[in-house]
C-alpha cells in the first residue's frame, strides 16, 4: 500500500497539533512538523514530501518565501502546497497562489476541510 508524506510548516504549536490530529485521519499519511520556513526548507532538503501545508505568517521565513523557494527546488517543484490564511488576507492568498501554491484553507481551520484538501491533492479516496 502506498505511503504518503506531509510536511506541516507552522510556528504555532497549537495549530501544528490541530493539523497533526486532523491528518491522523488520513490513512498511510506520515506527517512531519517544522517550526518555520527555514526549518521547513531544512526538512525538504533531506526528504521528499508528497504534500506541504504552510502558514503564511511565520517568523524568520514566512510562507510566501517558502512557496517561492519550494517552486525552485527540482525535487519539490511539483509538490502540492496548501497555504493557511485568515479570511481577511486575500492579498496574501492571491500572492501565494500566484507563486505556485495549489490550494488554501482559512482559519479557524476545520479538520474535515484539511482532510478533504489533502486527499484531493494526493488523489486518494
Amino acid at each position, binding site marked *: 500500500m502506498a505511503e504518503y508524506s506531509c510536511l506541516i510548516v507552522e510556528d504555532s504549536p497549537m495549530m501544528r497539533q*490541530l493539523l497533526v490530529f*486532523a491528518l491522523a485521519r488520513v490513512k498511510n499519511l506520515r506527517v512531519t512538523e517544522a517550526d518555520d520556513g527555514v526549518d521547513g526548507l531544512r526538512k525538504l532538503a533531506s526528504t521528499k514530501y508528497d504534500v506541504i501545508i504552510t502558514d503564511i505568517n511565520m517568523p524568520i521565513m514566512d510562507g510566501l518565501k517558502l512557496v517561492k523557494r519550494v517552486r525552485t527546488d527540482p525535487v519539490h517543484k511539483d509538490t502540492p502546497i496548501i497555504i493557511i490564511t485568515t479570511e481577511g488576507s486575500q492579498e496574501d492568498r492571491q500572492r501565494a497562489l500566484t507563486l505556485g501554491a495549489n490550494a488554501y484553507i482559512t482559519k*479557524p481551520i476545520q*479538520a*474535515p476541510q484539511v482532510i478533504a484538501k489533502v486527499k484531493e491533492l494526493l488523489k486518494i479516496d
Partner: protein
Amino acid sequence: MTDIKVRPATPSDRPPEDLKKERDAFIQQFFRKGAQFTEELLKENERLRDRINDLERENGKLRAHLASDEAIRELIRKIEDLEREKQDLVSRSARAEAVKANFSQMYEEVEGELANFANLYVATAQLHSARSVRNVLRALKELLAQLLGAAAFAVYFVSDDGEELVAIASEGVDVADVARIPARRGPIGRAFTSGELAYDQARDVSQASLEDPVAVIPLHVDGHVHGVIAIYGTLPQKTEFVTIDRELFKLLGAQAAPALVNARIFTDTGRKVPGIHAFVDLED
C-alpha cells in the same frame, strides 16, 4: 382334389342367340360398371388420401403453433419472473443506498465529533503544557482565535479588592478601552458575579460590541470565580456559536484560570519541581 368332368355341350343346351346377346351385353355392362365403380373408388381413395395428408399437415401446423404458443407463454412467465426479480433487486438496492447514506451521515458525524474531541484535547494540552503566565496567555489567545474564531476579546482577573476586573490579555481591541471594568456591573459583571456562562445563540456574533460582549466566560478556580473571558466579536465568517463552542467555553472556564495560577506558582518557585516529600506527605 376331385377332377370335375365337363360334359360337352349339346345343341339343346346352348342358349338361344338373343339370350346370349343379352347375357353378353349384361356382362359387358356389369364389367364396365365394375370398372367404373372401381375407378371411382380409387379416385375417392386418392381424394381421401390427399385429404388425410392435408389434415395431417394442418395438424402438424397446429401442433407447431401450440408448441410455439407454449414457448411464448414460457417466455412471458420467465419475463414476469425476471421483472419480479428486477423489482426485488431495485428495492434491495434502494434499501442498500439508504443504509449507505445513513452510514455516510453517521461517518461524517463521527468524524465531526472526533475533530471536536481533538480540539478540546488540544485546548487542554496547550493550556496545561505552558509553564509561564506569558505562555498560558499566548496559548489562551491562540485558542480563542483559532478554535472559537474570536477576533476581539479580553481576559480579566479580579483585582485584590474585588471591585474591578483587570485585563491581563486582549486582542482586537484598544487596550485602554478594556483595561479595567467594574466587577459587579454590566453584562461582564453579571457573568462574573453569577459564575454563569453568558452568550446569545440567536445573535450574529461577528457583530462586535464592547458594551455587550457576544460571550462572557467566568474563570473558575476551586469553586470560586476569579476572572472572566469577554469575547466582544468574532471573525466575519464566524456568525454563530455552535455546540463545540459551548464545550470550549466550559473547558476554558474550568481550565484557563487553574493553568494561569499553576504557571504563576511554578514561576514563583523558581521553575523547580518540588521534591518527593511534596507528593508523599499530603496534608490537603
